[in-house]
Structures are given as C-alpha cells and as structure tokens.
C-alpha cells in the first residue's frame, strides 16, 4: 500500500483553515478509500514540522493540546533520497523512525505553502504531489502576476494598479496612479487568500486606511475597480490536460458585502451573522442561476484561466460578472481551495472519497509524465577547467 503524506498548517494566516482542509476534506476520505497509508505532517506556526497519527484528530487543535504535543514530540527531518522520507527521532536509544513517502498531498493555504514554496521543495525531492506545480502556484498566488499572465492570453480583468509596500512611505506616486481608477475600489494584499486584508473603498478618504491594512499582511498590494452589477462566481476545476469543471458557484452575500474571511469561514456566509454552521458550505447557490449563455461564458473563461496559468491537479477560479453588460472578468485563482471545495464537487457528482483519490491519481500521472523529460545533458564544459 502506497503512503500519502498530508502536509498542512504552516506559517500562514490561513493556518487554521488548512487544518480543517487536511483533516476533514483530505485525511478522512483518503483513509476511507483504503488504498493508501495516510500520514499526517503538521507544520506549526513557527515552521517546525511534526509527523504523528495523533495529528489527525481535530480535538488536538481545538482543545489547545497541540502546544503540549509540540513540547513533547520530536520534530521531523526530511531526507531527499530519490524521493522523500520523513525522519523522526524515536526518543529511545537514539533510534530514528523513517517513513518513505510515495505521494504528497499538500493541504496548505496562503503563504509558505499554497504559494509554491512547498511545491518547490517537493519538486527537489522528486516526489509526486497533488495540485498545481510550483510555477503555477507562484503565479496564481500573486494576484498581480496572475492578472498579467491571463491578460496576455486575452482574458479580461477589472482595471487595476499595484505597488510594493515600501512605496507607501512616499504615497504620492501610487495615489496619483489610483486617480485613474473609478471608485468603488478594492484594496488587496497581492499574495493572500481567504480574503484576508481586503477592503472595499468607497471614497478617497478611506483609501489610506485600506492600504495600511493591506501592507500589514503583504509587501505587494493591488488596487482594482469594483465591477458594476456584480455577480461573484467561483468554479473548482480538476485535471492536468483534460479538465473537469465542477459547478459554477455563486456565493450569496448582500450586494455591498464581499467575501471576506469572516463571511467565508465564520459567519456562515451572512456577513456579520453567526448562524451559519458549515462555513464555506452553507451559503452558496450551486449551480449559479445564470442565463445559459453567461454560465457557459463564465465556465469557458475559468477553464481558459486554468490553462493560461498552467494549473494542474486542482484549482478554483474566481470570476466577477457584470450582469447587465454580460461581461466576465477574472478575479483570482486559488491553487488549493479551502476544503478542496468538496461541497461543490459533491453537487457535481464527485464524492469526497472519489475526489481525493482522483487528485492522487492525477498527481501520479503528472509525475510520471515528468519522469520522461531528460534532466541531464553531456558537455565537455568541466574538462575545460
């Protein structure tokens, strides 16, 4: 039986979301599939790695016992031995435990995980892993880069500008550029997901405050125009070469609200409310009720975005639709959507167990295809020295 390591947690503002994704949406169905030995690898907020079966229990994190666990548990080392091996001191007689990993299932969101860093490490180890590769992840998780790449492929985005956080010390130049945009605007950290640090700005006097919030989280900030007559939709997609879209999902928020962290994960979809129970699962319209032509256009745009960014495995593409004009704009891409958007896949006819097993299969197929590439080239260069 092959071993799949689920890596989750991490040095990210979305650390807690990652725990839920890993335990509820990945580990549980993968274990039920009974095709793999499942190992839980937790990256703490300080970046330390732990590997233990106890880490599969949500109670450990909810009760706060994770701190006690980390005080006692040995940290994990990684061994690159034509693959990836987890190494842990056994605490007795100086012996070490080794666990060869056949496939990695990253379940991380945001920085130092979803943004390609972890995928780079896994590429170095030459181990199959689920989801987008490090190139696609890096581009997708940078909202500015993602828009630049998709625009080059003819995909529309709302008008935007961007700047680095150090430019805010001399704000005149960026503020002058913002004058070219029409209010209301959205100010966003360029690299964060789960809508963290995003502000909606109705007028110029609110702008500096929104910018300060954004640069608190990120060193790169994007400011873009709001789309009028807005319908916000999102589409989970899976596949490497042959793509399978799930269903276009329309989050049900009030017109002036937007999809911030609380709305997504705590308020149950009702901004300011607390009645929701299922986080990202209880407040969407699936499939989005759009005229067929507009639905098809949005689905095609999302698939084009997925291909343009070189996504593989799974990703979720967010779109903004001007309902009156019938225009579809690219908003952003999540290379590893929270909870894998399993609720949407279920509606599309893919069970939780099927979803994770298909993703693992896609990871293996992608890795096998990559093995056919030549990685060495004989030269006489060294002999010249």
């Amino acid at each position: 039986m092959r071993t799949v390591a689920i890596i989750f947690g991490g040095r990210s503002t979305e650390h807690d979301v990652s725990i839920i994704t890993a335990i509820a949406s990945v580990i549980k169905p993968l274990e039920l599939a009974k095709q793999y030995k499942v190992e839980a690898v937790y990256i703490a907020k300080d970046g330390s790695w732990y590997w233990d079966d106890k880490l599969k229990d949500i109670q450990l994190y909810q009760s706060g016992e994770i701190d006690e666990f980390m005080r006692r548990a040995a940290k994990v080392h990684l061994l690159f031995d034509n693959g990836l091996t987890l190494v842990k001191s056994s605490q007795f007689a100086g012996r070490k435990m080794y666990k060869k990993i056949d496939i990695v299932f990253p379940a991380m969101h945001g920085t130092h995980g979803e943004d390609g860093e972890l995928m780079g490490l896994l590429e170095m180890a030459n181990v199959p892993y689920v989801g987008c590769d490090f190139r696609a992840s890096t581009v997708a998780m940078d909202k500015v880069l993602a828009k630049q790449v998709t625009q080059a492929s003819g995909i529309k985005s709302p008008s935007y500008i961007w700047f680095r956080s150090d430019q805010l010390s001399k704000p005149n130049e960026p503020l002058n550029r913002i004058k070219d945009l029409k209010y209301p605007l959205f100010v966003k950290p360029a690299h964060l997901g789960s809508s963290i640090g995003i502000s909606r700005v109705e007028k110029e006097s609110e702008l500096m405050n929104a910018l300060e919030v954004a640069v608190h989280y990120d060193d790169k900030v994007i400011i873009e125009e709001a789309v009028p007559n807005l319908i916000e939709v999102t589409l989970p997609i899976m596949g490497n070469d042959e793509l399978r879209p799930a269903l276009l999902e329309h989050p049900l928020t009030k017109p002036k609200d937007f999809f911030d962290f609380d709305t997504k994960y705590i308020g149950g979809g009702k901004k300011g409310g607390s009645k929701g129970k299922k986080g990202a699962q209880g407040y969407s319209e699936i499939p989005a009720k759009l005229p067929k032509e507009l639905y098809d256009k949005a689905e095609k745009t999302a698939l084009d975005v997925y291909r343009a960014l070189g996504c593989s495995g799974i990703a979720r593409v967010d779109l903004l639709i001007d309902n009156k004009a019938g225009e579809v704009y690219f908003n952003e891409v999540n290379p590893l959507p929270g909870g894998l958007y399993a609720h949407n896949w279920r509606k599309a006819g893919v069970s939780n167990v099927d979803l994770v097993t298909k993703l693992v299969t896609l990871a293996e197929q992608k890795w096998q295809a990559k093995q056919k590439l030549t990685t060495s080239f004989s030269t006489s260069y060294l002999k010249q020295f």
Partner: protein
Amino acid sequence: MLKSLVYMYRLRFAETIIYMLQATEYDVKAYLRWLWRVKDFEKVSYRRSLIKTRRSSMLLLAIKLGMLVQFAVAIAWASLAIKNKEPAGIFAVDLFLSTPLVWSHLVVLPLVLARWFWVQPLNRVDVGRSKKSFQKHRAIKIAVAGSYGKTTMKEILLVVLAEGTKVAATPANKNVAISHAQFAKQLEGDEDILIVEFGEGAPGDVAGFAQTVKPDIGIITGLAPAHLDKYKTLQRAGEDIFSLAQYLDDKNVYVNGESEALKSFIKPGHQLYDGRQAAGWAIKAVKSSINGLSFEMTKDGKNLKIKSQLIGEHQIGPLALAAALADKLGLTKEQIEKGISKVESFEHRMQPRQVDGACIIDDTYNGNIDGMLAGLKLLKSLPAKRRIYVTPGLVDQGAESAKIHRRLGEAIAGSDADLVVLMKHSVTDDIVAGIKQGKFKGELKIEEDPLNFYTNLDQFVATGDLVVLQNDWPDNYN
C-alpha cells in the same frame, strides 16, 4: 491472539457474555452456538452494545461477582500452596484459568431454570387466556404469515383499514404466542378488525397460532429460507406457514403470487396478489419513481386510483391487497385511497433518505432473497447518475446458502450498478462468484469494516447517486 486471550480475564468479558445473551434474545442454544464459535471476544460487540435492562443488569452483576469470587479463591489457594509448598497448588492455576469458561456457561443456568419453572408456566396460562379472549372477540381477525413481508403487510393494512374501522394490530414484529397473548390483554373489545402477525420459528408454530387466534382471513406473504435450524427444509417451513390456509379450509386465503417458493403450495381456492392483480382486481397504469408508486385498480366497474409513498414495484401487490380487502370490508373509495396515501415507508425497509443530494434507499431490515431481488430491480429501474449497491448478503440460508448467494451475485451483475460494495462475511465469495458469472461490468469493492462504511456513507456519495443498502449482518452471525 494474546490480547484477545487476556480480554477473557477482564470484567468487560462479563459484559460481552451478557450482550451475546441479549443479542440472541436469551435463546440458550443460539447463545451457546455463538459462544463456541467466537475466536476473539473483544470484537463480538461490534454493531451494538449491551442495553442495560433489569434482566441484563442482574445477570451481569451475578456473572461479575462469580468471576471475582473464582479469581479470588484461585489466588488465595495459589498463595497458600506456595507458602506451604503444596504441589496441589497447581490446581489453583487451573481454577483461575477456567474462570471465563465456567461463567460463560454457568450464566445460562438461571435462564434455563427460570424458563422451566417460571416463564413457561406463566406463558401457558396467558396463552390459554388469550385463546378464550380471541374466541369471544367479535372482530374480523386477519392473520399474516410468511417468512418475510409480514410486518409491512400488517402495517399497510393497519393504516388503510383505520380509515373506516376500529382496528388493532400486534405491535412491531411481535409475532409469537406470548406476544399474541399480551396483545389480547390490551384489546378494548369493540374493535372491528384485529390483525395478528404469525411468526414461524419451529414446525407447528403457525398451526398453533391459528388454533389460538382463530382467524377469518389469512394472508401469506412469502417463503424463503429462515429458521432452517428448526425446519431443516424450505418445504417443511412452507407446510407450517400453509397450515394457516388449512385452518381456513383454503377459503379467504390470500397468497403473494410473486414469491416463487410459495407457488407449489397454492391451491385453487387461494387468491393471489402481485403486481398485476390482487384478489380479482386488475392493476394497470403503474408508475414507479423515487417519490413513490401510483397505479389504478379495477373490478366489476369499480375503480381505485392508488398513490403511495412506498417505493419499489414489489410493494404494488401488498398495497393492492390492502385496498381490495378494505373494499371487501366496506370502506369507501375515498377512504381506501386516503388510507393508502397515508402509508409511510417503514424504518429500514425501502426507506428513502437524502444525503448530500444522493438518494439512499435503506433496506437494511431486508433479509430474504426475494426482497433482495426486488431491491436490485428497483436500483435498475430508477434514474441516477451513478448506481451503488451495498450488501453483506443474507444470514440463515441453510444448505442453500451458496446457491442463493450466487443467484444474488448474478442479479447484482444484471442490475446496472456502477459500484457494488460487499461487506466482507462468510458468504462474500459466493456473491462474488455470481457477480463474475453474470459478467458484471462495474466496480466491485469488498469492505472489511462495514460499520465504518455505513457511518461514513456521506463521504462515498455525491449528488445524483442512487444507493440501495440491503440487509445488515447481526453480530451473532459473525
């Protein structure tokens, strides 16, 4: 191995023993057969656990005390023997080691004694009284007998006839003499109709019940292998069930025409019910969907439009018979149609449920081959994105078990299921053989941990799936 051996010397072993007694309904023979078959007592209590009742609590206390005393005596004897250097002390080890063996057998003694000297004499008195009570009662008495489908038939009749008459029926699946006696005690005397379920357990049971209840109408719902430890053959079980028809001189006897095994017992005076006719009523315009059934019944210019929440075409026969009997007993067309529409699906019997947009048909109380074939027919007939069939197979099928399960496997192969999940048990290989013979084209999974599968069913299904779950495998058959 060592772990399961150690478990027998823990006090939790006592709970396992009492659970086994309770699960076999304190049937000493069934309990002993199970006891001698078990290899790992730690895994006995799998699906359920001991329910604390007065009887189980008293037995548990007795067995725990007994085990503790035997342990204590053995330890004290061994200590003294070591101190006095007596070689006979070796028997103290025997005494210690034999504790679970002794008490797992000794526990049946109070049951046997109580049954002989207390329960059976009292039951005989109660049954004797009930015979008089039934004889005096003015109501029309309907007896329902058969290896399967009795409870469903009785419940349908109860709901439909209640629209126009005062009707009482034996509760749940209580269908033995003492249950009939308790039912008779609770009657008010002014009921118009009594419906009594006859359970068959051993040769002569049904004939005895008929003598006690003295029914006016008999319904025979089906014949399939069950209780073959007592009946030995299906023929003998059928003969016992048809002793109800014999009591009624083969008049006012209604027989399920869809049960293959019943056909050789049918006599000219018997009236059949099935998907095409019921007691002379013709059935047409059948529509079956996940939301229920609808059909029309006609006889001698009369017409009934039936709409039911029950699902599966195998329910047409029982529904139609209930409607036909209701008409015979004087209910109006409106009362009959209203009564039928009120019949709700019965728990774990073709009971539809929604899980994340998937339709789950819970038929886990189905324990006979005819019912299984009906479920597979339903699976094939209903529209779905993906069809999933889940079963452990059937228990208690006697010498015919391998043949029946190969037949089941072939039916599974022909059901157009995309995924078949077999709960691993002793009959799995026979089902798989049938599935292979039927050239099954879908995916086949063998599930080692049924409870885990059922508990996490939501993880395996998605919107548009149709899942039929048939039969459950009780712990005492493991």
